[in-house]
């Protein structure tokens, strides 16, 4: 029996409305159950699980390297962030040091992922609230970023480009030219979006003062990412618990004290600017050197040495058929994904497969605040609030 709300005795005239899972503005397959009095939402509840694919169970039956393609498919709008979180967790378990060039490229690509993910958010959020044209602009720029991803990994979305111990391949010649072109053009595009929205009276009417959350509420409800910073909490894992040499980059963490939909919109726009700064720094200071760490029993050898060295061939055979054995232990690695704190909790029993791998999905936690944001408001605001927490249902349901 699907989840529903029971009518309260004496309040029978209230309507119970099931919104979704096929509603276009629920960004996937989210179902909401709303109790309405007129057009006002009195109570709300969410129903998820339509995309549950059992990733965590599958992880337990795959070797560590085989898990990486699965991580792409959780948050399918920011697959490189998922790759990074998973690889960092396993590398922490193995106590592996990553060469600087690989770290720099990882930072560069995950920041492009952040911009790309925020572009999809901006476009869909705007179209939900009636601003059609923004979506077309956003997808134009997103295509440029996906083109860069395709150059380095061969795939636009399901990249699987980061590997345990470094990167899958050396990026092709000329890829930095594409990045440079994007970095030059993007500030102008951001201005275009701002011209369309930031001072637009209709946009302001639909977003200012809607879905308010105070800083204490945001912390108590476990929000992370832009929704937390939009409520005035200065917390960014890239700054506060730096990973993958983020401490070597200069960027600001935007926060807004208002805690409404408009504040979160401004935070995300500013984040795109800061991400662009990081991309630029990573591009200009990209160090030379290897892209994989020197750990032959963990990292696959390159094709050339496999043909000439028997040790490389043996290691290749061992890694592919059996995998590697991390020490017994457990780690929790959190990264700042576009949607907030993406955490991987990894338990190893010494075998080549994770004993348990749990994903702390930011969308799953952020979604909990939705009923709180929409209760007492109009149905039209529900759409604005779903857009503002920026959920990806693939990640919510895993």
């Amino acid at each position: 029996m699907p989840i529903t709300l029971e009518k309260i005795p004496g309040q029978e005239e209230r309507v119970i409305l099931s919104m979704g899972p096929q509603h276009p503005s629920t960004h996937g397959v989210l179902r909401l159950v709303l109790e309405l009095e007129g057009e006002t939402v009195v109570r709300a509840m969410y129903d998820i699980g339509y995309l549950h694919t059992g990733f965590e169970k599958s992880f337990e039956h795959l070797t560590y390297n085989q898990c990486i393609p699965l991580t792409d498919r959780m948050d399918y709008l920011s697959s490189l962030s998922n790759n990074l979180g998973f690889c960092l967790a396993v590398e922490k378990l193995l106590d592996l040091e990553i060469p600087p060039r690989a770290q720099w490229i990882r930072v560069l690509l995950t920041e492009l992922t952040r911009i790309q993910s925020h572009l999809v958010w901006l476009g869909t959020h705007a179209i939900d609230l009636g601003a059609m044209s923004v979506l077309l602009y956003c997808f134009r720029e997103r295509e440029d970023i996906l083109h860069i991803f395709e150059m380095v990994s061969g795939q636009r979305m399901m990249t699987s480009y980061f590997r345990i111990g470094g990167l899958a391949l050396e990026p092709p010649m000329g890829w930095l030219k594409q990045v440079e072109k994007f970095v030059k053009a993007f500030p102008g595009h951001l201005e275009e979006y701002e011209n369309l929205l930031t001072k637009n009276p209709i946009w302001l009417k639909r977003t200012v003062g809607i879905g308010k959350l105070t800083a204490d509420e945001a912390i108590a409800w476990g929000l992370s990412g832009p929704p937390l910073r939009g409520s005035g909490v200065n917390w960014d894992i890239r700054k506060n618990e730096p990973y993958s040499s983020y401490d070597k980059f200069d960027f600001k963490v935007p926060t807004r004290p208002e805690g409404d939909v408009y504040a979160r919109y401004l935070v995300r726009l500013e984040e795109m600017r800061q991400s662009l700064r990081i991309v630029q720094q990573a591009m200009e200071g990209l160090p030379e050197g290897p892209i994989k760490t020197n750990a032959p029993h963990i990292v696959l050898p390159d094709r050339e040495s496999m043909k000439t060295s028997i040790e490389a061939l043996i290691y290749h055979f061992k890694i592919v058929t059996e995998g590697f054995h991390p020490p017994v232990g457990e780690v929790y690695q959190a990264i700042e994904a576009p949607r907030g704190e993406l955490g991987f909790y990894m338990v190893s029993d010494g075998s080549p497969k994770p004993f348990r791998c749990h994903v702390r999905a930011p969308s799953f936690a952020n979604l909990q605040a939705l009923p709180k944001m929409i209760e007492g408001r109009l149905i039209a605001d529900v759409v604005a609030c779903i857009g503002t927490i920026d959920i990806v249902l693939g990640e919510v349901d895993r």
Partner: protein
Amino acid sequence: MPSDLESNLALKKLRESAQEAVEDAREFRAEITIYVRPDRLIQVCEFLRDEPGLTFKYLSDITAVDHYPNEPRFEVVYHLLSLQNAERLRLKVRAGGENPSVDSLVLVFPCANAFEREVFDLFGIQFAGHPYLRRILMPEDWEGYPLRKDYPTEGYR
């Protein structure tokens, strides 16, 4: 080796105020894990949240690990975060028996609601005091708990 473990402020304060609540403490890769006695979990969490200097106000995650066929077979794992000190702490509670159950943290951290529902859904661990303990990811009429180790990945159940 256990230098980090001895200098950890949270563990020290916890031992001072509630020695018997701490069953064990471990360190791996500079991450601290504290095993808490099941009946003292709420008290420990309230202490860690409210004690000035610790301020673990942010519950980032709840999950569980199944150690089948060992008994007690489940470990419920809590990841706490102090935004003020940029510090993380892992709490663990053991649960076992026919009907594994631990106390719900909903009244201490509101966000525990969905996390606990997920653990209940996938592991079948009860959370005493949870206001709405129903399946969240699996269908309502599903039989069995998929993330248990004795539940097959494919084929017939």
